[in-house]
């Protein structure tokens, strides 16, 4: 009995999308671990444990893409999944091509920084593929939108959030100066960029995670999973930050509150209030690495990994109160943007559906 006989084309397509999302989740989590590993241990070889997981994730995504394409062939209404397939088929090859490029970049220029052409191609490819995979997951027939399907959308949103974070980090963290190139952003630009983009991203992603499912708990689960991944890959492995884990995980509280607000009311103003709360958590959600962004302008200290908590708490008291207003506004914009993206998505699906009816 082969796979084809056991599950339908649509189910296979969903399985493929889930595998792509899971693989990218593994890759992006390993990427976050790799950043911290560079900070703590300055590895001198390409063959490190984070890189192994990173490329294992790419391999899982590649297999998932195969399953997705095979599944799509047997789907009756292929048009519905066209965008999803297209994004994965553009993104994944970018990632696969970026891998040898990354290796040769290491050989040619030694230790590379966070922002390099190969890293950007890799992360952007992952971002596109993760959007494609989520799009495939949410395109699955609504009648089957069960709790397990809602959890699959969590699996779909996490890699988008993590890879988008990776792209934002590249243009805000000062980790891109190497022997041959200095791709570090200007410290003032980095602060402005982070202040605008971090809350926007959090709010957009979490708002969409609720809106797609319209189910209480999904936003909290998505946000909590992100916090757990970041805690494991950026905080847990730094002995000096271990005591700050309760502080970090406390951010589940505003996620939970936003989830309650969105679940119990449909009033626009309160939906924006939920976005505002989400935006205001940006300074906490992106701990500990955000310390390096704001230190570049405000505290201007040499931030050793063992002193991150000290510098961060100094910034929290002195800088966060100045920025929280902007973060709240960006949170509101993020919620509006999330709603807009979803409405556009529905419109695109309708147009595609009408353009090429399958039956």
């Amino acid at each position, binding site marked *: 009995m082969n796979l084809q006989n056991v599950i339908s084309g649509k189910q296979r397509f969903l399985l493929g999308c889930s595998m792509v999302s899971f693989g990218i989740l593994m890759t992006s989590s390993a990427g976050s671990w790799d950043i911290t590993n560079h900070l703590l*241990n300055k590895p001198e070889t390409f063959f490190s444990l984070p890189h192994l997981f990173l490329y294992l994730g790419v391999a899982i995504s590649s297999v998932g893409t195969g399953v997705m394409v095979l599944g799509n062939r047997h789907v009756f209404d292929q048009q519905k999944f066209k965008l999803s397939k297209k994004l994965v088929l553009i993104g994944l090859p970018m990632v696969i091509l970026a891998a040898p490029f990354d290796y040769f970049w290491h050989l040619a220029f030694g230790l590379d920084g966070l922002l390099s052409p190969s890293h950007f191609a890799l992360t952007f490819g992952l971002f596109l593929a993760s959007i494609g995979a989520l799009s495939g997951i949410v395109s699955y027939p609504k009648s089957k939108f069960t709790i397990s399907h809602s959890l699959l959308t969590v699996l779909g949103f996490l890699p988008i959030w993590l890879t988008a974070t990776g792209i934002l980090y590249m243009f805000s963290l000062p980790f891109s100066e190497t022997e041959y190139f200095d791709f570090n952003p200007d410290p003032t630009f980095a602060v402005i960029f982070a202040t605008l983009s971090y809350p926007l991203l959090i709010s957009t992603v979490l708002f969409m995670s609720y809106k797609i499912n319209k189910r209480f708990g999904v936003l909290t689960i998505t946000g909590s999973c992100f916090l757990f991944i970041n805690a494991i890959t950026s905080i847990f492995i730094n002995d000096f930050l271990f005591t700050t884990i309760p502080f970090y995980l406390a951010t589940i509280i505003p996620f939970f509150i936003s989830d309650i607000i969105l679940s119990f009311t449909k009033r626009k103003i309160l939906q924006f209030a939920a976005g505002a709360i989400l935006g205001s958590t940006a300074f906490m959600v992106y701990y500990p690495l955000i310390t390096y962004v704001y230190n570049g302008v405000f505290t201007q200290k040499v931030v050793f990994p063992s002193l991150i908590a000290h510098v*961060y708490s100094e910034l929290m*008291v002195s800088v966060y109160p100045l920025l929280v207003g902007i973060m709240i506004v960006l949170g509101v914009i993020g919620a509006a943007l999330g709603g807009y993206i979803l409405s556009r998505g529905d419109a695109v699906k309708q147009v595609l559906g009408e353009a090429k009816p399958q039956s």
Partner: protein
Amino acid sequence: MKLKTVGIVCAIIVSLTFYFVFSVYFLPDSYQSLKKPIPEPYLSKISFSESDIQYGSSFDINITGTNLGDASDIQIISIGFPNLTSLDDRVKITSYDFRQSPFFIEIGDDVGINYGDTSESILAQYPSIEAYSRPWKSNETYQISLSVTPDKPGKFVVFVKSVGLPHTSEKSHLPKDGFLDYQNEFVKVYNVFVNTP
């Protein structure tokens, strides 16, 4: 129904207030009072194979360092050669067991000053080798051996120091006093006499 709404609103306000007070004031305050790590570099062995050599021959330096204090993010053993103009063909690393490869610093390279307390830097005035481990945990020991060939007869000077980063105390550097180098850091001074043939 109205009572339920009021209850939810109150719970939200209380939870958010608790969260922001906890996150913005209470916890950062407690983290600021956390003890900063104090690494304590110690050089348990500094040995020179010769104190007197003929011009054209080489001598060996063997240095072993330990961290007697808290774990350091980076700990360095620096060996400077104020008589040399370049390390090329004059200084060779014969063995080392540090976590990372040692740095070769040549005249004009950018180097930190004042034990890295600030982000200021200065141009190197003479060549040196910086062997380092990142991180260097408590009680870990690392060694480096060099072979040195002086480029002219006379007194050949070697500076040795060790610095633990973050430099949070006077204990975080060795030696504690003595001769100050161009980086405004104390160094141990060793001499080898190079005799003319």
